[in-house]
């Protein structure tokens, strides 16, 4: 029909679909799932970092960390808004999250054990996120692409700040150096797994690429990321916990050691160190805030009535 043809044409010329355009149900569903999952990740991702706000070891770092976690709340907001343009209200998405029905990035199910984790998360986790997200700035769905432009800009700022934290620690006392190395050791593999399963085991990727949502395969992005951090870790004078990283001259690609996908699946299935805790906290905050949201809604309704009368 006409809608499908128009949609196909827009995709073919790599142009943008906007909320009022016709789109296939699968496209809409895929986007809602992906965008809301991304939004949930921002929101749940606040927790591991919020864990260190009260203990940040300098006022400057405390301020930077607060601002970063705040940015994540902001990202969550833009992304929920983008998803809402596809017809799913934020409340519904929140409820799915609280009920454990919606996914968020598995990386946030790991605990932040030391201050150095604030550095490693910035450098590795935000770094991986950026590799994933930069191509999404060109995603075929307009509101999503535009939200990602803003998100990416802030993320690269966060990544630099994370790197700075590690650099400071790497040049600090022996204990600080060890703290930094330990954090890198723990976050390295999970950050690589953020790109998703290997290409030969990633069934949905193909369709997303046809729709110009996804631009590169999981493995392509992962390899690019490994190359990037392999160079950067040298500046820190620290090491990645993987002695098989190398640039393959023949394929022109970066290679790395095997990843423990069984562990990844365990965490994905809900058996990570913090899955229960993250969800419980989100649910608790939501439930404890219910009376506040109700009050705000009741007040707004009263004000609206007053305005009508006047």
């Amino acid at each position, binding site marked *: 029909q006409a809608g499908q043809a128009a949609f196909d044409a827009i995709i073919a010329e790599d142009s943008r679909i906007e909320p009022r355009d016709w789109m296939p149900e699968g496209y809409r569903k895929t986007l809602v799932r992906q965008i809301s999952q991304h939004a949930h990740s921002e929101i749940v991702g606040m927790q591991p970092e919020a864990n260190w*706000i009260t*203990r940040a070891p300098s006022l400057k770092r405390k*301020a930077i960390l607060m*601002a970063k976690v705040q940015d994540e709340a902001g990202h969550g907001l833009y992304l929920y808004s983008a998803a809402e343009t596809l017809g799913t209200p934020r409340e519904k998405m929140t409820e799915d999250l609280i009920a454990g029905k919606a996914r968020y990035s598995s990386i946030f199910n790991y605990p932040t054990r030391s201050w150095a984790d604030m550095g490693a998360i910035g450098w590795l986790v935000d770094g991986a996120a950026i590799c994933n997200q930069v191509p999404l700035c060109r995603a075929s769905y307009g509101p999503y692409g535009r939200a990602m432009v803003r998100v990416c800009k802030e993320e690269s700022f966060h990544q630099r700040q994370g790197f700075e934290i590690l650099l400071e620690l790497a040049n600090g006392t022996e204990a600080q150096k060890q703290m930094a190395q330990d954090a890198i050791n723990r976050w390295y593999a999970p950050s690589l797994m953020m790109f998703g399963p290997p290409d030969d085991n990633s069934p949905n990727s193909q369709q997303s690429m046809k729709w110009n949502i996804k631009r590169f395969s999981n493995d392509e992005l992962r390899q690019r990321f490994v190359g990037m951090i392999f160079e950067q870790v040298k500046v820190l004078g620290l090491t990645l916990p993987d002695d098989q990283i190398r640039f393959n001259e023949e394929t022109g690609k970066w290679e790395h050691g095997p990843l423990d996908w069984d562990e990844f699946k365990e965490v994905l299935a809900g058996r990570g160190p913090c899955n229960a805790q993250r969800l419980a906290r989100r649910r*608790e905050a939501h439930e404890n805030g219910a009376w506040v949201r109700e009050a705000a809604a009741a007040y707004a309704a009263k004000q609206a009535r007053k305005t009508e009368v006047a």
Partner: protein
Amino acid sequence: PADTAEYALRLGDDSLILAQRLGWWISRAPELEEDIALSNIALDLIGHARSFLTYAGTAWDKSEDDLAYWRGEGDYRSAHIVEQENGDFARTIARQLVVSFYQFELYTAMLASKDETLAAIAAKAVKEVDYHRDHSAQWVLRLSLGTEESRTRMIRALELVWPYVGELFQDDDLVRSLDGTAVLPSTLRAAFDEKIAAVLAEAELQVPDVQSAPGGGRQGLHSEYLGPLLAEMQVLAREHPGASW
């Protein structure tokens, strides 16, 4: 000189301790917009604290972090109200209402300080605190005129916070000796009362009829809440003496 530094400590400590309290809310607020709003306020306060503590530190050759992380409870100069627990959202808002209306009057008056640094910090802070005022006043309205539950909680919250209002407006020898440099807290009370009364009237609330606590924070006599707060805030820095971050 040391007297001005001592005065700057008071200002810095109020903001620092309140920011530390507000920091807890980030990731736990009733809605995302409030995670953002409360962290905004906390960030502003940390900014003010850093300016005041940096300035105070020049008198003793200490950095902002020396002062924030290496002073014990008895050397802190915060008022009891900022040390109070977060409680529920209404209580956090009640505390915020008092502190932001107080700080607004304080910084407005401080614009005329003959100490240029204090005046300059106040000039920046007063704009931000004006927003904090608006934020808390709006929430007082929403909560008091929202639902029955929120109104009950708001009333209770104000009662819980009000005993600690008086301390903010107490003069002492230090501020009296810093004539023209420090702001005499007692001179701020009338404007504070008037503006708070207007907010409460719009919210159909009364000024709570409760007794005052005597305070003592400016002399290093703190509420029982400060010790555990500092334990958490300082633990990491103190595990690594001399480290930079």
